[in-house]
């Protein structure tokens, strides 16, 4: 049994991807150039909500387990590394899209193949998480992202719309998983009290 069968991870990742999408669309429409502030502040707001949701929804249903700090630290290191790398790629993409002389080389490399680069990177990151966390549905998200971005390389649709599509698909799947989880694991009454008496 995985601790992420509850779909909460999907909902929050989906909202995170949506925030990227809205940020980029906002930049396209309003020339709001610091769009990356939105996904950057997102974790600070959403992580406490996620922790609280885990406490309210997941733990009362399937209990609580604390893994050793060694494995958790490894996963956290991978996560932080990937977040920093991802933000770096997006910032490089943003800077390269402006006509600064020093960024020309980068621009010539990234801009024509931007969708392919991001698609492959996102699929690779997704697969890495799927492998590390044992969550097969993350492979599906990776494939979806890759297919959409490869399609986007050939069709001229604003980049933000692809992110909105991916985000929405992940959120919907998250809610479906959450409903299934709640149905499969109804709240049990009295188990802990029973233990308190019997142990």
């Amino acid at each position, binding site marked *: 049994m995985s601790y992420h069968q509850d779909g909460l991870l999907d909902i929050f990742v989906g909202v995170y991807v949506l925030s990227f999408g809205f940020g980029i669309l906002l930049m396209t429409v309003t020339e709001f150039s610091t769009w990356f502030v939105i996904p950057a502040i997102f974790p600070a707001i959403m992580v406490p909500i996620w922790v609280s949701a885990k406490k309210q929804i997941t733990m009362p249903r399937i209990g609580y387990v604390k893994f050793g700090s060694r494995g958790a630290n490894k996963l956290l290191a991978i996560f932080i590394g990937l977040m920093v790398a991802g933000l770096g790629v997006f910032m490089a993409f943003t800077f390269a899209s402006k006509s600064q002389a020093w960024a020309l080389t980068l621009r010539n490399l990234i801009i024509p193949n931007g969708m392919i680069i991001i698609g492959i990177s996102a699929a690779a990151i997704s697969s890495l998480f799927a492998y590390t966390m044992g969550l097969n549905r993350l492979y599906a998200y990776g494939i979806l992202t890759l297919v959409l971005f490869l399609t986007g390389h050939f069709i001229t649709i604003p980049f933000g719309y692809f992110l909105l599509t991916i985000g929405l698909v992940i959120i919907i799947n998250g809610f479906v998983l959450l409903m299934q989880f709640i149905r499969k694991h109804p709240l049990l009454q009295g188990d802990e009290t029973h233990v308190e008496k*019997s*142990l």
Partner: protein
Amino acid sequence: MSKNPSDLKTIDRLIHEPSRLMIMTQLYVVESADFLFLQHQLQMTPGNLSSHLSKLETAGYVEIVKEFIERKPHTALKLTRKGRSAFKEYQQNLKQVFNDLPK
């Protein structure tokens, strides 16, 4: 084949019982878990689980910490150092028994 059938006597029977083996295995791979988690993982009734936990606690293999979190009773379980080394020894002894069997 095991050179001496009495080698089987080295197997810790307290751990060898299937339900307790599952409990020990679950707790071995985590730092701690609560009662509800084990119950869901092992598909055991509360009474059965608490009975096995009591035996493991008596042997000094499992530490049971009872506390209140947000006014609700909560039972945290973890392997003691003795329990961890007993489980490792159990693993080695069982492996040895199988290694000694003819192929």
